[in-house]
């Protein structure tokens, strides 16, 4: 299923956080949203996983208007890995992952055998199977991050949105996670801070600056010395990755803004 943001705007307290953002994520594509802090990336994402109602514009899931769907209904199609990793009580890892089934279950209905297997598989995929009985509050930031992604996968979504999923992760788990996203076959919209990882992992990139989409396209088209200088205010040289050919940025210190 494809995901389209159509002229999406978010205004709160008279401040425009996202301004007429249009972006399309084709089925099975991984699209990255990049931009400096406060450029509206997370806000745009929140409209997709329905923590926020857009002030105007629409989010389309295929042919369906997201804002018209009941929350539970859209949660069966769109899963999110958000930035709030905090959990109030000491649930076990297994319990948190199983909560990913919540939109599919009525009341306290127990998980079926198939759903249990789904949880096991997701935990193994994210390399947290050995933590199943651990309390989530005792985990490291990176481990918790992987628990949250496992929970999102268990939701069996068609579309996955992730807000800085590589936060707290060590290099191996960053690479693992992005490989998993690429191999998942899901339609993915992901906010990333690391432009090099974004270039390697995404089919297309959207660059946000002050709530506006200032560039979009294949990483090689978007990530230019000019754009990185304009949007992020840093000097960077762009070189092709020696193995994959993806554009990679080499930053120089004491940049002239």
């Amino acid at each position, binding site marked *: 299923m494809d995901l389209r943001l159509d002229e999406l705007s978010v205004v709160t307290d008279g401040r425009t956080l996202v301004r007429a953002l249009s972006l399309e994520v084709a089925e099975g594509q991984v699209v990255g949203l990049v931009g400096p802090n406060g450029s509206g990336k997370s806000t745009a994402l929140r409209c997709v996983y329905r*923590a926020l109602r857009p002030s105007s514009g629409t989010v389309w899931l295929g042919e369906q208007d997201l804002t018209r769907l009941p929350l539970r209904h859209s*949660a069966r199609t769109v899963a*999110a890995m958000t930035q709030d990793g905090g*959990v*109030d009580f000491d649930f076990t890892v297994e*319990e948190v992952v199983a909560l990913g089934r919540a939109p599919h279950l009525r009341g306290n209905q127990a998980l079926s055998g198939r759903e249990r*297997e789904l949880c*096991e598989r997701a935990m193994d995929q994210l390399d947290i199977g050995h933590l199943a009985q651990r309390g989530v509050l005792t985990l490291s930031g990176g481990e918790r991050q992987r628990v949250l992604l496992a929970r999102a996968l268990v939701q069996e979504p068609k579309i996955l949105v992730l807000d800085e999923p590589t936060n707290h992760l060590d290099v191996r788990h960053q690479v693992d996670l992005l490989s998993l996203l690429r191999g998942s076959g899901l339609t993915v919209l992901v906010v990333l801070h690391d432009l090099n990882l974004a270039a390697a992992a995404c089919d297309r990139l959207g660059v946000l600056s002050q709530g506006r989409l200032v560039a979009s396209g294949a990483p090689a088209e978007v990530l230019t010395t000019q754009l990185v200088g304009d949007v992020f205010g840093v000097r960077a040289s762009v070189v092709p990755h020696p193995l994959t050919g993806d554009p990679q940025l080499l930053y120089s210190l004491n940049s002239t803004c």
Partner: protein
Amino acid sequence: MPPPSTSIPSASADTAGPAEVPAAVPAAAVKGRLASRKALLLGCAALTAVLFGSVVVAIGLGPAVITPGETARHLWAALSGGHIGPDEVTTYQIVWQIRTPRVLLAALVGAGLSAIGVAVQALVRNALADPFVLGVSSGASVGAVGVTVTGGLAALGIYAVSVGAFIGALVASLLVYAASVSRGTLSPLRLVLTGVAMSLGFQAVMSLIVYFAPDSEATSMVLYWTMGSFGAATWGALPVVSVVVLAGIAVLHRYGRVMDVLALGDETAASLGVGPDRYRKGLLLLVSLVTGVMVAVSGAIAFVGLVMPHVVRMLVGATHARVLAVAPLVGAIFMVWVDLAARTVVAPRELPLGVVTALVGVPVFIALMRRKGYTFGGR
């Protein structure tokens, strides 16, 4: 889908092996889950048996001691409309008219306070919350004392004070809601802060009323309401209390998974199909109603609603459906024994319930806090 990793997860997480799912792992997990469900059911059955036993023993104990067998016989006679000899009428009246409603009320309120404690902690996302943190009890006190002093609601006879307390509780909840809701959203932090502030305000109002009250009845009423007692229990109030408390617990239990999801944070809850504001408003309404009814008949009994949720979470984990199955039973048993202690230890005088629950609750709470391995909902 990649297969589950083998025993060395770090080495094999990303390798694409043969796509065959080893049946042993999921089967074992399913079995484990079933076993734990069974254990939960067995535990609940055992607790229910203990509760029944406690109720019968507690009905038998008091100034006139009646053996459990005798008590059971009288209870059965009352329930089945059986025959009681003329020389047993006094015992029957003690059992059925005086002690049974009191012990049943204790069990109901103990169950209700524990369940509501769980719900309030989930609602305001704070491990230190109890059923009274939202101003319900101090609002009820103002209502009760107000009715006592002004003689209002006199038409309601012996229920006037309870009705006054209930109205006070609901007004307090409404005020807390109105003051904390902002643009249709109900932030847990704002809710708990408003509740605490409002409680202090209501306490001031209550002190004012007592200060200017012409008689001393208001003062004893305040003590009664802030410490709690089942001394005024009658059969008349029991139907309302049992329906509200039991229905409240049943509804809360049904929304166990919703509370689990809310504990993951508002953003995540929304992405899992649980609109946090909608459910929080519903929870607040339910919690206010049930607490209001309980406070109206027993006053504000401290510590039960704070400590029981933590004790039960230590036993069965954090999943709300499990906690809400066990907590009411444990709370009911605890309260039956607390009430028994309150009315027998310094007989013929009676200790306020809050004194007993605090004397038991404070050490338990401190011990819990110092215990390793229980994180108290935070680090």
